[in-house]
């Protein structure tokens, strides 16, 4: 697979974030490069502090996934990175608003940048928004 898969994580919905992580993992396992931009309500889901992470919304399905799925979305993204060409970028706007540095987030991010920076990295391929 040549074209990259570009995922925009914007929602703070647990199930959507988990779904994005599964997509990243399977695409990575098939050799497809994956770029993930985490912004808006999704970024708190990647904070080091468990209290911040647990504040994200869970619908009925998300609740079951959170209780039963192992590994969780952080683990799935980590597996995806181990497996292939996967890069995660944290949104600098949200980080600035929350006064967070990259060190406040779980250690799966490659960098922190704005949307222009992300779009500059992913000029081609398929883009999906979660």
């Amino acid at each position: 697979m040549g074209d990259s898969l570009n995922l925009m994580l914007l929602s703070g919905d647990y199930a959507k974030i988990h779904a994005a992580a599964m997509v990243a993992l399977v695409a990575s396992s098939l050799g497809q490069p994956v770029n993930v931009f985490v912004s808006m309500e999704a970024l708190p889901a990647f904070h080091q502090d468990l209290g911040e992470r647990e504040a994200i919304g869970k619908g009925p399905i998300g609740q079951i996934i959170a209780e039963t799925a192992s590994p969780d979305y952080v683990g799935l993204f980590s597996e995806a990175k181990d497996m292939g060409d996967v890069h995660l970028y944290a949104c600098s706007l949200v980080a600035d608003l929350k006064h967070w540095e990259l060190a406040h987030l779980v250690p799966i991010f490659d960098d922190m940048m704005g949307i222009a920076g992300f779009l500059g990295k992913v000029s081609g391929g398929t883009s999906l928004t979660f």
Partner: protein
Amino acid sequence: MADAKVIDARGSFCPGPLMELIKGIRQEPVGTVLEVWSSDRGSAKDIPEWVARAGHEVVGNVEEDGIFKVQVKKVK
């Protein structure tokens, strides 16, 4: 079904069984046959799709007492 190295992923939900297969197949030499055991119905369809895309071969796919057993041969 041929003799195979079993990956017991019973009780694991999608994509757990597939993940176990992916991890296992990377560690084995070409020609190895792995057999994934899954209690997850979706994995019985998901795994063959991944195998086809990844360029390997499904050599068996049966259900026994609610357990789905998919045999995969590593071909590259």
